[in-house]
């Protein structure tokens, strides 16, 4: 679909890098962009905290601990907004890193089979762990373990003669994603109605009723993974010049791929274990930011982190208020925005030079 002519030469991720090589990323420009995005995220978070399925008085919420307003604010709305920030940041920054890693603009956790594996692990734990006496707490552990296993399997299988071809990697990832989807539907068909609904919920993705502890876990693991990505930002830039050139410039390609893969699967595992599969965030956000600010990953990664957070928080606000007091799964909102955008990207790319 992406490449015409059949040759697996589909990389455009690095095309913008050449332009940027002249215009250095100055400390001032980076600071300006990052603080502007941080302000945007803060504004989104404020709006999302102010509105919800019910109206609350901010005064009572802050100063009257015995009021329902306070409980709604502290135990329901705030952790949910925080979780939106954490999950959005994780999905978008993982998307940006994976797109550079496989040099393909369509890469994201979902397409590489990571989130599918993670969701399968979570669903298995959800459905069967309770029967063997293990509690709900094993769900995130299963989600991680499955994300990691799926990632490693994709990584191993995609290697040809010790080389990791980005195109092969993408294909294997897509196949794995389809495989996990099928495995989930298989589980779905043998469990009772109660679980069938829960599984659907995981597949659509939602940020419903997170606890502060879950927020802490996702933020912590997300931050740790992001630190790894940031430390490899320069290598990701060089990777866009091609494996050989990057290797000549001193990048240890295989170690880089392995590290990025492990870091991203940890991050995705954490996000999926609480929110299910939320699609398209990892795709839209990095692309928009790459268009706006170029593809230097020292800037693109933090920009995606913030942009993803803002986008997710606003999408979740829509999920909460559109048909209140009932809710829409946030994954439906992001996919509704993401689908048309995805097609727009494809069309742009077919037409001409597109500095992704």
């Amino acid at each position, binding site marked *: 679909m992406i490449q015409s002519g059949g040759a697996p030469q589909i990389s455009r991720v690095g095309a913008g890098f050449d332009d940027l090589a002249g215009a250095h990323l100055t400390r001032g420009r980076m600071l300006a962009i990052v603080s502007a995005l941080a302000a945007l995220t803060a504004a989104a978070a404020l709006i999302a905290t102010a509105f919800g399925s019910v109206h609350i008085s901010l005064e009572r919420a802050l100063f009257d601990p015995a009021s329902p307003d306070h409980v709604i604010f502290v135990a329901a709305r705030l952790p949910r907004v925080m979780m939106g920030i954490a999950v959005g940041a994780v999905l978008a920054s993982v998307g940006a890193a994976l797109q550079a890693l496989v040099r393909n603009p369509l890469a994201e956790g979902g397409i590489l089979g990571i989130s599918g594996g993670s969701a399968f692990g979570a669903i298995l734990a959800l459905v069967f762990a309770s029967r063997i006496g293990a509690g709900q707490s094993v769900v995130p552990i299963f989600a991680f373990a499955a994300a990691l296993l799926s990632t490693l399997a994709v990584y191993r299988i995609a290697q040809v003669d010790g080389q990791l071809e980005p195109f092969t990697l993408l294909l294997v990832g897509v196949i794995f994603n389809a495989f996990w989807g099928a495995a989930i539907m298989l589980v779905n068909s*043998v469990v009772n109605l109660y679980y069938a609904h829960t599984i659907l919920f995981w597949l659509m993705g939602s940020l419903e009723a997170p606890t502060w502890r879950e927020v802490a876990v996702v933020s912590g693991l997300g931050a740790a993974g992001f630190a790894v990505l940031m430390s490899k930002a320069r290598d990701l830039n060089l990777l866009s010049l091609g494996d050989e050139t990057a290797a000549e410039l001193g990048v240890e390609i295989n170690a880089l791929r392995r590290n990025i893969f492990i870091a991203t699967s940890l991050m995705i595992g954490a996000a999926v274990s609480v929110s299910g599969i939320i699609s398209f965030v990892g795709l839209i956000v990095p692309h928009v930011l790459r268009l706006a600010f170029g593809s230097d990953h020292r800037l693109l990664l933090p920009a995606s982190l913030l942009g993803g957070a803002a986008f997710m928080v606003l999408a979740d606000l829509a999920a909460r208020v559109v048909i209140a*007091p009932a809710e829409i799964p946030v994954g439906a909102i992001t996919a509704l925005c993401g689908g048309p955008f995805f097609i727009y990207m494809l069309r742009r790319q077919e037409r001409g030079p597109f500095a992704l």
Partner: protein
Amino acid sequence: MKLIDPRVPMQLRSTHPLTGAPGIGYLRRMALAIGRARLAAAAALLCCARIAAPAMAAAASPVQRIVSLAPSVTETLFALGAGDQVVGVSQYCDYPPAATRLPRVGSFLTPNVEAIIGLRPTLVIGLGLSSDTRELEVVRATGCSVITVGDDSLQAIEASIRDIGGRVGRADAARALVARLDARIASVRARVAGSRRPRVLMLVGHEPIVAVGWRTYLDDLLTIANSENIAHASGQQWPELSIEYIIATRPDVILDGQMGTAAGRFWNRFSTIPAVRNHRVYGYPDNPILHPGPRVGSSLEMLAAMIHPARFPQSAAALHPVEVAR
């Protein structure tokens, strides 16, 4: 009234048998099915002797081979004393025990046409939802009678008991069953009459938070038990309610399908909800409460006892409030 032991996790209580769609040859499948049906018929006779009222007149009608595609239909057939005519049930049918030993033919969501036809039924009873309409047409084309009944309101449940009774030659038993159900409903109405009308939230799922909305048989039961269902505002049958709305609406009683410590941990975050503060979050057994059908009478009594414990003193000891630990 005896409630099921709350210490047993709900997931362990109901059986989730895998669909027994056999990949074996047709002959062997038939033999198996017939063998199982015979066994089940014997068990069903024992069972029916217990369930069916002794006054029931066994109408003279040709014995049918009935396939049921929904738990409510299966329960109705057995309650009417027609359990011995049932040759196949849905994968979700887990009551009465005799029904669980019958061949499974998928469910109203995914009926297995081959398995149904393979049982040579003379009557197939489904729910007529969008999910089973096409399959039922195929079955009908083989010359077998197909009827559909509803089970999503109290009225529909009673109508379906009468319909099924008429089709299986148990019209008198059906009338008697409906009369007994009506008497139980009237007795609950009388007990709760004049009580304060508490705001109630009834959940059927935590992930996502799915509540009992309006135009469901459970909503009918909540109304008869003189309570105000806070999920009405959603205008949906099974709304995914926002937790903010639940906190703001301040339900006095929460009926939560999930029991035990997980539910306690979930609710204890939201301490201003009167139900949480006053320890009025109750776990309920999914069987029978989440099963529409002839047992709605006992479901109603259980729910009413949770909503108005003072009016049901003999059941109060059997309630199991969810432990909301600090």
